[in-house]
């Protein structure tokens, strides 16, 4: 995972609550077997009409927001499907952080594991950033994970993040390697599991 320390870039306002992962990356683009190449399809149905023409009103199509790096949105961002493709599409399009009032649990976990920083701010902070981005398009935001701050123009907010999650992002740590340090404990747990536990090799009735 690419480490995250301090990133900056244009703020892109998406002033909606409950932005679900079906909107972030519609299902017709989930059939690839790679992690890359999803950026062109980010928010596909909001960005393009049914004929594939760009919708000029949608924020990602407005030239003043081109190359955005920090997406700002309402509460419960990333709800719905568990598809990690939603995170990959945001990253592939150039986003490095999403600032929102709250995130759906699975999306937030996926983002942390892929190096897209989910920043939770109180409603007033999100509102101020949305207003700044809307009133002064092209405004730059700075997301500093070491300092745990988001700043833009005269605005500056401190955000909370679990210390362990922060360390993993700062160092780009590999979760699997961390867990495998507990190999002995995993093996000990396995040795103590009862015989009735699910076992895919144990069909009592013959599989054909």
């Amino acid at each position, binding site marked *: 995972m690419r480490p995250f320390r301090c990133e900056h870039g244009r703020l892109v306002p998406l002033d*909606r609550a*409950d932005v679900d992962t079906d909107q972030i990356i519609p299902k017709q683009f989930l059939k690839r077997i790679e992690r890359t190449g999803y950026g062109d399809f980010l928010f596909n*149905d909001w960005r393009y009409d049914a004929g594939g023409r760009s919708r000029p009103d949608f924020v990602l199509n407005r030239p003043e927001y081109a190359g955005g790096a920090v997406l700002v949105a309402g509460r419960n961002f990333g709800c719905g499907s568990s598809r990690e493709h939603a995170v990959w599409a945001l990253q592939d399009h150039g986003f490095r952080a999403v600032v929102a009032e709250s995130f759906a649990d*699975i999306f937030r976990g996926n983002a942390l594991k892929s190096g897209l920083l989910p920043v939770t701010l109180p409603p007033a902070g999100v509102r101020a950033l949305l207003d700044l981005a809307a009133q002064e398009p092209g405004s730059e935001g700075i997301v500093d994970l070491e300092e745990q701050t988001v700043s833009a123009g005269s605005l500056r907010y401190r955000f909370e993040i679990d210390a362990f999650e922060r360390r993993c992002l700062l160092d780009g740590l590999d979760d699997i390697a961390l867990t495998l340090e*507990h190999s002995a404990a995993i093996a000990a*747990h396995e040795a103590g599991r*009862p*015989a009735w536990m699910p076992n*895919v090799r144990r069909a009592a009735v013959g599989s054909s």
Partner: protein
Amino acid sequence: MTSRTLFERIWDGHLVAQEPGGPAVVYVDLHLVHEVTSPQAFEALRLERRRVRRPDQVLATMDHNVPTAAAGAPDEVSRAQMDALERNCAEQGVTCFGVGHPWQGIVHVIGPELGLTLPGTVIVCGDSHTATHGAFGAFALGIGTSEVEHVLATQCLRLARPRTLDVQIEGDVPFGVTAKDVALGVLRAVGTSGAAGHVVEYSGDAVRRMSMEERMTLCNLTIEAGGRAGLVAPDDTTFEYIRGRPFAPTGAAWDAAVAEWRQLRSDAQAGFDATVSVDVATLAPTVTWGTNPAQSIPVGGAVPDPAALSDPAARDSAQRALEYMGLTPGTRTNDIALDAVFIGSCTNGRIEDLRAAAGVLRGRRVHEGVRVLVVPGSAQVKAQAEAEGLDAVFRSAGAEWRSSGCSMCLGMNADVLQPGERCASTSNRNFEGRQGRGGRTHLVSPPMAAAAAVAGRFVDVRELSEARAS
């Protein structure tokens, strides 16, 4: 011994390690895998030269992309994804029930029906509706692809301990009200993110009286309230459902299992972080009008006016939803005409759902111009329905009888709505474009979907049932 909730009992029993100041390492008993969220995980294992740690605890199937029409063939990209799953499973020694296998089906339907979903276990799947398995008293949660890779490699999940929410469901379920209506009622009470960060335990008399399939429908929709997992304490209903299934424990192992499962409950004094009560006696058959599953009204009711909502975000969301859905405030559900009906999905694609829908359709005809798809949740559900003659009921009513898969719940295969088409659906999400770009989804129960198929618009299924009785 301090009092514990059911969730805390399962959590404590699966705690392998605790990172200082970090997440817990939790052991996973069963990992369910499907074709859409797994290829990048297997690829990453290959690049790191890692092996699947416990192939005997991983089961793969194909459900999201599979064609459901008799002569249907997957498109080239879907085929490549299905081939990749077969290749990955063969390479890593993982069991895969692919298309054509008698045990293939929607991942959340086959786990329970095969007897792999067991009380007191931890179950994960790269799919948000994994909460379904919580109906058995399993801690079952949806995960992303990076976590799929992590579980394949380590058989563990790294997780901060969630909080607990007790949803107490009491009262006598009125005639015509199903588990789907109860779940939609819970969503109205909790909201789309009210359960975020929480494991939800469903308790109360009404839950105790539910069948396993009804409990699965209830738990399935937990994610729509943002919950990490849903849980129902196991009881004799649970044990009777599991007994004798292909992978269920037998003999001494069965006896030991049941003895342990009987301990799986929340102590009377156990503290939950939050509690919500729902009185089912006040519920009616329900129809969603918006683009999130919490936006619903009783059948016969009127689409609400967003202007009446005090919360700006909710008002904005309702306004957008009405625009997308092509509805105006005050419209009665009975005046909403339909183009399509979908009966199926991991929410409502099991045999009891199909029986309920067939019960309404028997001897009736689908309304002219309405396309009705009936898609069993698994190959076993399909075979059972055919043994009971339900397929003939659906066919003679004018519905299409399909093979098992996720189908029009998310429209990854050929089963999609056209722009502007309106559908009564027994699935779980009415998000914009969920069933096809521009498609308009109304979530309902199976009997309500069947009644809508006959009338060509929403009608109160209780009136149809009474017409039959008189």
